[in-house]
């Protein structure tokens, strides 16, 4: 397993009303973004140990420098179809929540972009209901729409049931 990029997460809160940096990634052709401050690193996962009887969103666990990280399959979590899943297995965006580490398995990781908070728009009415729970707004970019994901809600699998 190798890292593609290791992003240092700063600990200072940004002043309100200005720019936020997002790590972008695609799943099933859709563009998503999460605040860079929440992201520990991105990686190419290999040797994912499956956990029998785990909910389908959980792909399994991996060993990240001695810590056990739970892998969340974002395609399943976002309710997207299996077709088009990359053959190389995709990439992982590692986030921390409540002293536990999770890796979001996505198709590919894009750039880190900076966006001003004023441009953030509310979830459009046409947004898939499942995503509405997980999304915290959208940004209209030059060629695409980026959906901001709320990491804590993404990780809260129990609420889904």
């Amino acid at each position: 397993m190798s890292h593609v990029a290791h992003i240092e997460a700063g600990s200072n809160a940004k002043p309100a009303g200005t720019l936020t940096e997002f790590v972008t990634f695609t799943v099933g052709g859709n563009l998503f973004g999460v605040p860079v401050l929440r992201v520990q690193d991105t990686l190419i996962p290999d040797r994912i140990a499956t956990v029998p009887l785990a909910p389908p969103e959980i792909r399994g666990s991996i060993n990240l420098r001695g810590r056990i990280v739970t892998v969340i399959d974002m395609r399943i979590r976002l309710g997207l179809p299996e077709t088009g899943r990359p053959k190389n297995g995709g990439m992982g965006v590692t986030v921390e929540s409540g002293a536990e580490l999770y890796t979001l398995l996505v198709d590919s990781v894009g750039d880190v972009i900076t966006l001003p908070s004023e441009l953030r728009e509310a979830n459009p009415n046409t947004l898939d209901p499942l995503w509405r729970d997980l999304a915290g707004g959208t940004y209209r970019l030059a060629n695409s729409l980026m959906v901001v994901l709320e990491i804590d809600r993404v990780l809260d699998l129990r609420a889904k049931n």
Partner: protein
Amino acid sequence: MDDLLTEFLTETAENLAALDVELVKFERDPSDAAILGSIFRMMHTIKGTCGFLGLQRLESVAHAGENVLGKFRDGALEATPAAVTLILSCIDRIRQLLAGIAETGSEPEMDNAGLIADLNALAQGKAPAAAPVQPLAESESTDGPVISEAGFPVAADLLCEVEAALSSGVQAATPEKILAELEAERAHEKQPVLVPAPTPAPVATAPAPKPAAPIEAKPAGQAAPADAAFANASIRVTVDVLEKLMTLVSELVLTRNQLLQMVRGQDDSEFKVPLQRLSHITSDLQDGVMKTRMQPIGNAWSKLPRIVRDLAVETGKKIDLQMLGAETELDRQVLELIKDPLTHMVRNSADHGLERPEDRRAAGKDEIGTITLKAYHEGGHIIILVADNGRGLNVERIRAKAISNGLATEAEIEQMSERQILQFIFRAGFSTAEKVTSVSGRGVGMDVVRTNIEKIGGTIELQSAAGKGTSFMIKIPLTLAIVSALVVESGSERFAIPQISVVELVRASARSETRIEMINASPVLRLRNRLLPLVSLRSLLRQEAGETALSGEQFIVVTQVGTYNFGIIVDRVFDTEEIVVKPVSPILRHIPFYSGNTILGDGRVIMILDPNGIASAAGQVQMSANDAAEKLAASSEHAAERTSFLVFRAGADEFKAVPLALVARLEEIDAGKIERTRARHVVQYRNHLMPLIPFDPNHQWKEAGRQPVLVFTDGDRSMGLVVDEIVDVVADVIAVELSADEPGLIGSAIIGGKAMDIVDAGTYVTRAYANWFASEPVRETATKNGPRFALIVDANPFVRDLLTPHLAGAGWRVMSAETGAEASRLIESDTGYGIVVAGLDTPGFDAAAFARKLRANPRGASIKLAAVSPITDDDEFASLREAGFDICVAKSDWSVLVDQLRALVTDLPRLEATAETDAGAQPNVTPVRKKTARVRRVTGRDQVAA
């Protein structure tokens, strides 16, 4: 808040805790100068540090306290309970002030003049103000449950004294009274006793609108150094540092293991010796670091005696707090997290669980209620029990509350078992307390308790019996444990099983002697004459059913959970490794089969299996495997004689057993349907009134809920034996030790590894129907004319005893013989025998020969001969009948055996020869006893259709 202040707060808090403990000791033995010395020093330190930091209010309070302690030390003041109370309130006040500082960073605006004045008055030999024990601190906020800080920890004997006084109507001492007492005590003192007017202010905790009495702050000179002596013995280290150390050591352990592995194969490696040393050092290091984080659970319990004592006083109850296993160690962080839950549960027990003394007396219980805390290690977990012997949880109220809170509908509740209903107390905002006391009852407790416990990966279970008490069991994994685990493979995934649960490994293949057999579609393994229920890991984890290895080999990990043994079928078995247990991610914690996960030496992540979880899930499997086991046992050639027993509990805590063969049915009847006639309890059962006889003479009849009952049936008469709990069905080879004296008991035996009493069902059924065993009035004729004796030939005393009542009930006098030789002797010596019941497995007994000999003799022509065989063997039966036996029955067909015997002894038309059963066929029935055919065993071994 700056570091200095933070450190001060932590340190002082520790000192105060120590001070509490010391004061309790001091109270027990006021003459101990050493204790007093250390108490004084501690207060002195506190005062000094306060002064150093410019915390004036704190310092003045501490100073006043120190004065009094100084007087104690000098012998100028006697440590009366009232005086000690005052000192303790001083400590409490300090705590409050500290709490205020922790919150806001500066001292709270609190007026301490009253307290200080009292302390000073005491120091000067004046009477302390009446200090009624105030069990609860009146804190500024009134939301949420309040933790008691005031009051003082009292030795148990003092507690009893107070209780005794309270219950006999003694009022708490008024100021005048205390004064008078003080006077009397001082009668022989040399100092002049001043009798001032009793100071009106009790220990005030609410701020009073008086100006604070100024007390000069003494120059800070002393601070800490004078008492550095006992401070140097320990060092403060942050938890993070320890955590890092722990992780590093774990990595070291794993790397060491890898090295050991690599070197293992090579005999002559030069690395071996130094590696051995490295290994030892690593193990020692591991132990040492683990110790830094482990603390005895007694630390979390230390506040509880005081809290319980205060609660007892406030509620007027008598409470004894038992703490067992206080030295059991667990991780410091875990300790912090369970402190509050434990406190909460203890308060609940004291406040709601235990009844008032008069209620307890009325219920026939000891006046003093007991709350028990017990902690111990078991299999990688720490188990903590919190139990009380109070009134138990009120299921009805919980039910009602659940409905009224909208947590479930009536229909849903109807479906729930009592156990499920009890779980409602863990819901947020749930409280059935009628009164919200200041102690508890606000309903914010148990959900928080459960959340906190689950946060650390633990579980909490609850049990409750109305009128008897409630108990909680908390199970917390020792997550920092480095444990030995067996690595296995199933469905191409690897798993770890804690070594401590593994009993042995067995390799089974289709061709070997040890092979997996399928009974009732459940796999079992025959292992050294025992049948072991098996569970397949593949099917449990719903992995794909794979092909077993070509050789048909499978591995079985024989696992032990408590006293229950079972086997886990896996594909492959690897090494035993030392692994670092890491808790499972919260989103996976709901899966009951995993107790953690870990990283192996080669870097892969594997799940750690929880044998407990597997055992519970396989519970269904177990039950059917057990009866399958019995069937096998019954038909096995070299099976030792096994008898199936039904194990139950009634009354006391010990288990009792009754031969399963005698029990017609197990029922759980609705307690609400039990009716009481003049002398007994009955219930409508299958269109008859069935009398209910409780096994336990002190049985408390329930008004509602399910009542377990063992039903004995004879003909169309049924009788229900009321028990507390039906525990298990065990098939075992038994050796009964007969006990002659106790009515209702045949004897005792070791069943399933436990010693238990074997119940004489006959006693109970005759209580229901005095003439249970009497059949028809043929009784008389049998005794008056003709043969009077019946002979039972069987080496097994138990069987003889089972058969005897049936024969005796029909009027026969029963003799017994243990061997064939003895049987022959008896028959030849006496002409009075009319019937012989012979067990075919009696040693030295050739049944056919015996029969032929008997029949050859004209005298023996009319003797009825019955053969009782361990197994059904048609051929043998046929040849026995030819030799002269009248009937042959298999022992396992108990009811049929009884039937046929009865028929024999009472001379009714005998059953046809074809009535001998092979398992599964419906026997013909005699015209008289139709319903006896409907015997249904609980084990599902349905030889006879119900």
